[in-house]
């Protein structure tokens, strides 16, 4: 962090000038500045997704305001950030092997237990990683996983699904996530860097917390995790922000790099305030025999638009892709998952579960692609949605693009209210209607909650879900 960061301010809006100022503020090396400019160039060349763009037509950008945003507000030097109480409790959880706290655009606090530290694990904010470990950041940072130079969705040609619902012709000239990944590449700040050296197995989960409250701040957090050969680690990330009237913009990226035999459990939990438009591009690269559990939890934001791409590049890779979401009010969640089988003999197993009440709307669009060479792939996908009000709505769109002939692939989607027979069963035991609904919805999410390895976070999530159910 530059010494005088707190005293300088960026102009509002996104511009080349703002990038130059940001790089200067951070005192960044030239290569980082050059990459920002390259990304900015692409951002300017790429149009905003059109209303009829196949991957954007369910999320209108008409109300998105980018002009008033400020791309960078550093954490105050020398002061303790005023984190909400629930975050402080989570941050102090002794069962975590390390904690990173990001406040507004920069890292504010870092702790790593002795054991992982002595074994060469690096766990710090991305600005620090760029300064201190450029050789570890440079090869991976937006070069292989989340990139703004390749439109990975434009080439997709999913076949008609069993339900016959697909409009046909693939995604055509979709912008995919390029526009916002490029903007992210131009303005990223703070974020999490985690590096686990070869063969190092870390048992205690690590966690990072990101919180922002600065007016008009646009957030560009970037998570980069590199797990070397045979290494194993768990990271839990929580995102939250202060409730505020004005619209806010968050545009994050997550890159998960798993080398041969690496094992990663990654949890991405988002409970942002209801004024935030949250865009996120996340990609996992899985080498041979790598093992990944990747869970996303979406509770907050006004609008969430997520692209989650799992690239199985090595034989024997095994990915469990899990998600839960709970929308209320007018929340709008639009999530794309991509089980991208590049190498054969790999497994991906996806389960996304959502509950929606009030006027909430969710889209789950899950693409399974099996490349011609990816024989003996196993790809499974299930999306379950519970509608808790007549005005809530969920679209579930499984899409298959299978080009190999020796694969096992299943997909299933359900959308509907709580089963009235389940309700009757619980009520016939004396449990009132609202409590019965609550039990069923909590139970619906429980198998996913049980995956989360820190009890303090599990409790926090359970609380958040109970609040949403409204008791």
């Amino acid at each position: 962090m530059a010494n005088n960061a707190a005293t300088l301010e960026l102009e509002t809006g996104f511009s080349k000038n703002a990038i130059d100022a940001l790089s200067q503020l951070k005192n960044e090396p030239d290569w980082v500045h050059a990459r920002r400019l390259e990304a900015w160039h692409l951002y300017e060349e790429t149009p905003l997704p059109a209303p009829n763009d196949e991957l954007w037509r369910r999320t209108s950008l008409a109300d998105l305001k980018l002009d008033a945003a400020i791309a960078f507000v550093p954490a105050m030097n020398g002061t303790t950030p005023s984190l909400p109480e629930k975050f402080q409790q989570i941050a102090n959880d002794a069962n975590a092997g390390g904690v990173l706290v990001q406040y507004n655009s920069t890292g504010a606090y870092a702790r790593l237990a002795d054991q992982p530290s002595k074994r060469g694990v690096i766990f710090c904010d991305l600005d620090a990683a760029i300064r201190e470990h450029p050789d570890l950041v440079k090869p991976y940072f937006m070069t292989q996983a989340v990139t703004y130079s390749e439109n990975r969705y434009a080439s997709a040609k999913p076949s008609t699904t069993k339900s016959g619902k697909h409009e046909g012709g693939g995604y055509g000239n979709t912008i995919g996530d390029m526009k916002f990944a490029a903007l992210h590449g131009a303005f990223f700040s703070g974020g999490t860097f985690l590096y686990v050296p070869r063969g190092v197995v870390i048992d205690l989960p690590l966690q990072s917390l990101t919180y922002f409250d600065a007016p008009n701040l646009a957030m560009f957090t970037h998570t980069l995790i590199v797990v070397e050969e045979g290494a194993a680690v768990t990271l839990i990330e929580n995102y939250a922000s202060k409730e505020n009237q004005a619209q806010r913009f968050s545009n994050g990226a997550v890159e998960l790099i798993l080398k041969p035999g690496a094992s990663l459990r990654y949890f991405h939990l988002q409970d942002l305030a209801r004024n935030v438009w949250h865009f996120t591009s996340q990609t996992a690269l899985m080498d041979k025999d790598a093992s990944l559990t990747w869970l996303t939890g979406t509770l907050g934001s006004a609008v969430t638009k997520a692209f989650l791409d799992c690239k199985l590049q090595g034989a024997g890779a095994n990915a469990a892709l899990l998600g839960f979401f709970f929308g209320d009010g007018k929340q709008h969640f639009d999530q794309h998952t991509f089980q991208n089988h590049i190498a054969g003999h790999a497994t991906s197993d996806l389960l996304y579960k959502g509950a929606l009440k009030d006027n909430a709307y969710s889209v789950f669009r899950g693409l399974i692609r099996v490349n011609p060479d990816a024989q003996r792939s196993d790809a499974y996908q299930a999306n379950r949605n519970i509608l808790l009000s007549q005005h809530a709505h969920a679209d579930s769109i499984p899409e298959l693009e299978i080009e190999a002939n020796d694969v096992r692939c299943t997909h299933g989607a359900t959308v509907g209210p709580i089963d009235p027979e389940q309700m009757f069963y619980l009520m016939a035991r004396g449990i009132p209607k609202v409590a019965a609904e609550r039990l069923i919805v909590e139970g619906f999410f429980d198998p996913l909650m049980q995956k989360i390895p820190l009890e303090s976070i599990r409790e926090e999530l359970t609380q958040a879900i109970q609040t949403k159910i409204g008791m």
Partner: protein
Amino acid sequence: MSDELVIRNLHVQVEGKEILNGIDLTIRKGEIHAIMGPNGSGKSTLANTLAGHPKYQITKGDILYKGESILEWGADVRAQKGIFLAFQYPMAIPGVTVANFLRTALNARRKATGSNGSSKAISIPEFRKLMLQKMQLLKLDQSFATRYLNDGFSGGEKKRVEILQMAVLNPEFAVLDETDSGLDIDALRIVSEGVNALAGPNLGVLLITHYQRILNYIKPQFIHVMVGGRLALSGGPELALQLEEKGYDWVKENGHVVK
């Protein structure tokens, strides 16, 4: 009067179709009644109607519990006041453990029963002790406490867990809807012993069954035969044996309503 369940001229429709055509039956505490009858005669409709399933519409008649009509009570209120239905097909509730479900149900019942001194929520250790004791009665392994309710249970396990619920909730009036169906002989014995252990002067039981088999284990004082949505024949325990011998067609030909 006070400790009776009275079914009076009960007519019930399901999706516009009349299933029950005037049932009259009084069950006192301490009594065990069995309703037998062929498939489709309306036995399960009666069970679900008593428990308050919203799909079953009462078009005529009344159900009185301790002198009060229960027609306006929801399923939850009926259960809180001590009416219990052991389901023919218990629902799986994935994600909700047996223990969590039972404690929630027990606390709802305690809260509603109010003034009898047990209206406070049960403490977790006290609940655990109660549950484990009742699980022993049903020969259920302790591990069932943390399993998701009926999720992946065998037919016999589901029925044993139904009676476990009955044992924990301690109702005053229980309807057992084909609790014997789908049970092998060992499971039938365990379930029956469970019911017998709970039966007594403070419990009224309505046992609904297609087969005579369960009556080798549970001994009702009264047997009723349901045919075409009516109780066509009523009598003592000997009636079950007659039925076993002569079949339901005998009742259809010779039946008459006994009040």
